[in-house]
């Protein structure tokens, strides 16, 4: 109780820091108790229902105890492909509880979680904030034994990954897996040079240079960055904000993890450049909770940049440009990668998207004009300033200038990040990553496209396959329809629940898919599946529901034969239950043998 009060005071009873308060309470007590909810509500002058609403929105917060040590085992498709089931069993046996439960002694909690950005080193888990990668059943048992013996999760990290993962402030077993260094992100960069260049120009000139470079948003949506900055700059307001979206949650993407680990200065300078362009003095890095192991390290980089006058007051030799950056952390919600949901979350609320218009460039963080840009976009913008638009447009294709950092994972010899020029074909990627046997490639994550062999000639660029960078490769033995089902589960679990089509529609799509996969579908079911998918895409409020039927719709298009093989051709109607099974319990209670035909149309 006293601790809760201290935490609330530390955050100055500020409702916009509600997430920070809840995070600290959760970390200290393993849950947010009814007493803590009451205390937070009282001090922040909110209703208890309001506070509970925020706690229950985020995956890593809980009203009930989660255990002294909490294991969040990644539940992504790639994790399953790399042996997650055996690892999960080992955790359960050693902990003495099932996933979703806390062990009887209260020491170990086991919970599944959506993709944590470690697709290149699965199975992976987050234990008390510490990341464990390339897990095996033996390693899982060792972790539980170590925790039971009172060791900290950090103590159990035996070897660190490469690069800055070895830094004293990170000490993570995460590997960067940088497979291909391109000229933009991994090109030479002198710290401070981008900001110095920016302040030597007029803000309008900075925006013009980015426009001339044709830089399009790297998060997946591909909105022109220069135009976004221009809109934001032209809004009259007391303050403007730059928000860096470091909440990459699309299953299969992990490139921002690598950028933040190895190139944080480039990102922070990109934010300062954006700040100068739009007239902002404050920037916020919204870091997904799964990457909070990078927090102390990123804070130290910010501190160093302040020392070098790249951040702070009158920076980089300018007469009057002040700019500083604060890091805010998420708490486990895919939807917070959507820019307006991210802003809501950064303001300490439930991460529910806003209605647009107004767009964040006019009404954003704390209702001020805000430019929200992806990590990679900002890093790229910094390099554009240093090297000029012409240097940038010489790379890639005419309509997709520059390079893209791809996260490649799944059935391939060399999973990891690849910085490639736009215009490469999917087949080129498969050759690079070592996947000659690929049967299917998921480009852009579940919300993107599932390609079959004929699609491997398509190109990675904004006019063909526009992507945030997630590329998941499936080998010849993978069950594509099972993967589609897993992807739909993901969207069902990550829908914020605000609008009808996304909240209910994804559940109904998954049920229909199951009916077909279970061999109980007919031709009408396939038609329904397609129509309902279009319905959810058309009527949903934000990008989540507008893309969530894609796993079904793109496989209906590219792998239709798999569906056709599952349905009962020529049947007028197939019920989604088996009559015999359905009456089995009743019959055995009455000591009778069910006597009926298996399905109604036989």
């Amino acid at each position, binding site marked *: 109780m006293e601790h809760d009060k201290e935490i609330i005071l530390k955050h100055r009873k500020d409702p916009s820091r509600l997430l920070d308060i809840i995070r600290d309470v959760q970390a200290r007590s393993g849950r947010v108790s009814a007493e803590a909810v009451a205390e937070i509500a009282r001090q922040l002058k*909110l209703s208890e229902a309001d506070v509970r609403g925020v706690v229950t929105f985020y995956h890593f917060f809980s009203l009930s105890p989660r255990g002294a040590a909490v294991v969040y085992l990644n539940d992504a498709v790639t994790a399953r492909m790399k042996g997650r089931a055996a690892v999960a069993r080992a955790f359960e046996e050693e902990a003495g509880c099932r996933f979703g439960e806390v062990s009887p002694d209260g020491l170990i909690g086991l919970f599944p979680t959506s993709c944590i950005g470690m697709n290149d080193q699965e199975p992976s888990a987050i234990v008390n904030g510490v990341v464990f990668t390339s897990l095996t059943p033996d390693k899982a048992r060792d972790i539980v034994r170590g925790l039971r013996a009172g060791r900290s999760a950090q103590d159990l990290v035996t070897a660190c990954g490469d690069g800055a993962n070895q830094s004293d402030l990170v000490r993570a077993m995460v590997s960067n897996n940088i497979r291909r260094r391109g000229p933009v992100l991994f090109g030479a960069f002198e710290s401070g040079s981008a900001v110095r260049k920016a302040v030597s120009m007029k803000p309008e000139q900075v925006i013009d240079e980015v426009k001339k470079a044709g830089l399009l948003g790297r998060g997946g949506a591909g909105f022109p960055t220069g135009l976004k900055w221009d809109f934001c700059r032209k809004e009259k307001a007391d303050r403007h904000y730059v928000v860096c979206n470091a909440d990459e949650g699309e299953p299969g993407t992990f490139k921002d993890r690598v950028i933040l680990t190895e190139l944080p200065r480039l990102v922070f300078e990109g934010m300062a450049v954006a700040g100068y362009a739009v007239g902002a003095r404050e920037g916020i890095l919204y870091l997904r909770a799964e990457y909070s192991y990078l927090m102390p390290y990123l804070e130290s980089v910010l501190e160093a940049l302040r020392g070098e006058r790249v951040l702070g007051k009158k920076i980089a030799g300018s007469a009057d440009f002040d700019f500083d950056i604060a890091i805010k952390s998420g708490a486990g919600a895919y939807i917070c990668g959507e820019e307006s949901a991210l802003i809501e979350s950064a303001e300490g609320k439930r991460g529910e998207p806003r209605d647009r218009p107004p767009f964040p460039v006019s009404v954003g963080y704390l209702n001020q004009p805000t430019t929200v840009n992806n990590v990679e976009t900002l890093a790229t913008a910094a390099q554009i300033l240093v090297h000029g638009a012409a240097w940038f447009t010489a790379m890639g294709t005419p309509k997709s200038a520059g390079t893209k950092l791809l996260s490649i994972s799944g059935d391939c010899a060399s999973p990891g990040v690849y910085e490639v020029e736009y215009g490469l074909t999917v087949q080129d990627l498969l050759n690079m990553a070592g996947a000659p046997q690929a049967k299917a490639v998921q480009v852009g994550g579940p919300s993107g496209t599932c390609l079959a062999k004929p699609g491997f000639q398509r190109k990675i660029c904004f006019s063909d396959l526009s992507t945030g960078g997630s590329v998941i490769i499936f080998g010849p033995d993978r069950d594509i329809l099972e993967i589609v089902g897993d992807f739909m589960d993901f969207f069902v679990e990550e829908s914020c629940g605000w609008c*009808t089509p996304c909240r*209910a529609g994804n559940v109904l799509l998954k049920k229909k898919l199951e009916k077909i996969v279970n061999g109980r579908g007919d031709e009408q079911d396939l038609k329904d599946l397609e129509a309902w998918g279009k319905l959810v895409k058309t009527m949903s409020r934000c990008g989540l529901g507008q893309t969530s039927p894609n796993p079904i719709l793109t496989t209906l298009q590219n792998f239709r034969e798999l569906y056709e093989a599952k349905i009962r051709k020529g049947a007028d109607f197939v019920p989604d239950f088996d009559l015999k099974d359905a009456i089995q319990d009743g019959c055995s209670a009455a000591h009778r043998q069910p006597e009926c035909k298996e399905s109604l149309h036989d």
Partner: protein
Amino acid sequence: MTEIHFTIDGKECHAKPGQTIAEAAKANGVYIPVLCHYEGLKPVGSCRICTVRVAGRFMAACTQPVAEGMAVENTAPDLEDMRKALIEMLFVEGNHMCPTCEKSGNCELQALAYRYRIMVPRFPYLFPVRKMDASSPRIMLDRNRCIQCLRCVRAVRARDGRKIFAAEGRTRRVAIDADRDLAAKLGEDEARRAMDICPVGAILKKETGFAVPIGKRKFDKKPIGSDIEEGTAR
């Protein structure tokens, strides 16, 4: 202020700057079905039933401001069918029991189902297990009938501005939660208003029931939206 000219299904309409498509349509005697929207509250676009099409793009009429020259499609058959599907979704994702519901005849979901001539939903029923909360002295919260319109969240506040109702959880499990202490302090009139503002029977006032008999209620007389179409809406 300059007037905005736009059309709905070809009909010439006028709007004031800042008006949403739904507001302007109503003012022009055109009915666009709404459910989560409630006049005077900030629109949230949660039910999506007011979705219209403008230049091939779909948008919620309750949140989208009218712009000069807009050609709004409101009654295209494909659009109307998708709206109908959303109403059906709301029926199957909850547990609705019209024949015994105190709101029957005054329920906007039920009225929309009649207007859209829904006989049986195209979707399978999901039969969710949802908790009821009757702990408050004046109101009963039955989440079985809740459609997450967030009207109560927006409209019902304590005197100091704190929210009495809030959304809890997310995904299909999102549920309206009442603040126990604040809900206990609701007065007679406030409880009545909470029930009236709820489009369905999720918030019911205790102690009185069926004061107006079924058959003599608002939508028993005329379909929802007729007042707008007849120009008799307030």
